[in-house]
């Protein structure tokens, strides 16, 4: 459903993406893993059209996403750091997003579970980093999208909220959605992911199913499997 073909992107001298090709299909939950600066976020951003690749292209349901924007209606994106207009309240941000999406089917599970209505009138600038993450997460799921792209979703969340989010991801996964997650905390991904994409220095190292990875490395836990991979690479 989401396919990147030979995508290359350089920022000055830095090669952020080097001829990357990945195929993400419906029903998959993919962990995007790699050391800092390996190009994970850049890859996500090219998929969202936020970064325009130097060469190669990306298709969403067989349509090139270049110059198109309608496909983003079907994507929920949770950025690494969600920052919002300082003077707007949570309610206003939510309303604005609803205004933009104009979607009738709303999934307000996370909003309720994070108890955001109680904070609705708070200005964004007064919020803690964790609360902002809650807002970001709620927004990503709010419109019931087919594809979820979550960039470090649990960073800054307390364990309880982290768990809520995780349960939500599992629930969505069960609905057969495509979910793309980057995270440093690999232990969290253990019971979530079906696929692993490993990147390093802008290059795609491998794209394997979790079973394949376990088989190849002989490790059951994702953490150990990846550690094994990193040692050998």
């Amino acid at each position, binding site marked *: 459903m989401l396919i990147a073909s030979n995508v290359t992107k350089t920022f000055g001298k830095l090669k952020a993406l080097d001829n990357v090709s990945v195929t993400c299909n419906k029903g998959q939950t993919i962990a995007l893993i790699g050391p800092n600066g390996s190009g994970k976020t850049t890859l996500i951003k090219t998929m969202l059209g936020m970064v*325009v690749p130097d060469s190669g292209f990306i298709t969403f349901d067989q349509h090139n996403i270049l110059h198109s*924007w309608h*496909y983003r209606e079907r994507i929920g994106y949770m*950025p690494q750091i969600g920052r*919002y207009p300082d003077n707007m309240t949570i309610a206003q941000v939510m309303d604005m997003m609803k*205004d933009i*999406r104009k979607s009738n089917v709303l999934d307000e599970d996370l909003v309720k579970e994070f108890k955001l209505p109680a904070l609705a009138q708070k200005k964004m600038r007064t919020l803690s980093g964790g609360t902002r993450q809650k807002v970001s997460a709620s927004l990503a799921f709010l419109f019931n999208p087919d594809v979820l792209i979550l960039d470090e979703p649990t960073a800054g969340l307390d364990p309880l909220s982290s768990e809520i989010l995780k349960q939500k991801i599992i629930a969505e996964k069960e609905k057969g959605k495509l979910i793309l997650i980057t995270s440093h905390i690999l232990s969290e991904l253990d019971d979530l992911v079906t696929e692993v994409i490993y990147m390093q220095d802008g290059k795609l190292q491998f794209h394997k199913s979790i079973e394949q990875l376990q088989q190849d490395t002989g490790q059951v836990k994702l953490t150990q499997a990846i550690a094994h991979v990193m040692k050998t690479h």
Partner: protein
Amino acid sequence: MRTIVKYVMLDLLKNRIVMGYTLLLLVISFGMFSIDANSTKGVLSLMNIALIFVPLISIIFSTIYVYNSAEFIELLVAQPLKRKALWLSIYCGLALSLSLAFLIGVGLPVLIYESSATGLVLVISGLFQTLIFTGIALLASVKTRDKARGIGVSILTWFAFTLIYDAIVMLLLFQFSDYPLEKPMIALTMLNPVDLSRILILLKLDISAMMGYTGAVFSDFFGGKLGMLVSAIVLLLWAMVPVWFSVKQFQRKDL
């Protein structure tokens, strides 16, 4: 697009700097008019406000606002929105709220104390400066990634339009004082929106002196319908061209 404009404006109208700017303009304007019984002097001072202070605030504030909204823009870029629409919405939001601030801060006092053709030209000029320099700010901020540098570019641009350009023109005037310079001067004026607006105000305020010297060529051009039309078109172009370039740039920009 209207949705985003609404939210940008909502954000800006609550912004303390915009409120402060409005209030400052209001205090200055009322001050200028009430200090002196002679309202011509008030208009003169307000001309400097409209042609020097307003561009400065417009360009710096807009530049900073765009940099500060980087994350907000990022958030919206990931949404099903046209980039062009998003960027134009930000421009409209900024231009509208700064224009509103100017209308309240300067337009209102002018309406009360000097509701004449001169006052009208003054207010329109100030509005154009707001639109133009907000546009230039957008271009400057989309071209430079670094915030400090972007603000630097903005201040320099403002400086170029309000002082450096005129200094160069003056130098040229004296270098080539033996040649008839009226027509080249009209062309040079068109290249600087601040100068163009200033001359339009001058044609109201100092009409006697303007008619005295550069005489026919000048007053014929600016005083006539054609000149007015050309001036208006040039000012509109000044308001649109930088924005258009910034849109082009923004559509290719990596966020």
